[in-house]
């Protein structure tokens, strides 16, 4: 029976992104590293960021399909997961509740005819 067991040899099981090594995606990733001066301290970190970069390339393609009049692709944030990007570069608090008026009141309506 043991001879019939198929041993997993790809990285799908381990999730270490080794399948991306040597691909066009890795070449794009290296170009991204050079362009934005990115540095990763360990090989593990490099592989982790490569995996995120690959996912972000797919996300950019989705955005391109949904937003065809803009150009979407590699940016300085392409090695960050959505959660990391939100935590580090966004930062409006309480946005979920919609408009918060604070103490400022609402501006009077202006005449915008013509």
């Amino acid at each position, binding site marked *: 029976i043991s001879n019939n067991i198929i041993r997993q040899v790809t990285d799908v099981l381990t999730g270490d992104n080794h399948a991306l090594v040597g691909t066009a995606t890795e070449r794009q990733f290296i170009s991204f590293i050079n362009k*934005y001066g990115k540095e990763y301290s360990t090989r593990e970190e490099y592989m982790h960021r490569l995996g995120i970069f690959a996912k*972000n390339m797919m*996300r*950019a393609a989705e*955005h391109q399909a*949904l*937003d*065809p*009049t*803009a*150009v*979407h*692709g*590699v*940016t*300085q*944030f*392409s090695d*960050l997961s*959505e959660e990391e*990007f*939100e*935590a*580090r*570069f*966004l*930062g*409006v*608090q*309480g*946005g*979920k*509740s*919609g*408009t*918060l*008026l*604070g*103490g*400022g*009141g*609402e*501006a009077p*309506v*202006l005449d*915008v005819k013509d």
Partner: protein
Amino acid sequence: LPESFDWREKGAVTPVKMQGSCGSCWAFSTTGSIEGANFIATGKLINLSEQQLVDCDHTCDATDKRACNDGCSGGLMTNAYEYLIKAGGIQEEEAYPYTGKPGECKFSPEKIAVRVTNFTNIPGDEQQIAARLVHHGPLAVGLNAVFMQTYIGGVSCPLICGKKFLNHGVLLVGYGAKGFSILRLGNRPYWIIKNSWGEKWGEDGYYRLCRGHNMCGMSSMVSAVMTKTS
């Protein structure tokens, strides 16, 4: 209202800034609106301090006590105006430079460069927003930034973009009449938005977003500030 309008051409907008790895977009949106209002009142463009807000402003919203300004962890532009009215005003960038990290408050009232007296929320009608922009100056805006992580250029006009979840503070500086849109057949109007992710992001640090559809919730959280001239 003019067909197109851009406060950058009139000298009311400072160069694009860089918030770094810090959720302080709300502070940059706040300073941008004050820089513009002060320019219109005095004719002088003064670069103002975001770090003062990051370090010193811990104001909570009047209607939602959980929505508090908290340095690199986020904040609201309307809270920042409340803080600045109480504190007396804001220092210049040079006097209180940006570090991108929260630190001890080093605000010096004697070094105030611009005094803030009041602020208003602009109703969520895009014609009203355009009118306020032209008459008052650049406006602080909150929007959903989901498409901004991958944005490189062009007029962003996504088919689906959440209008309720606003997570990023930016500065509305103008609008244009003719940005090409394939799907919406022909030229469509757009907003010109100043971001705080440096000049390497987007169109030299700017974002163009479709106008007229409350795109990504951009018309839900718009505010203007009033400054005091000495």
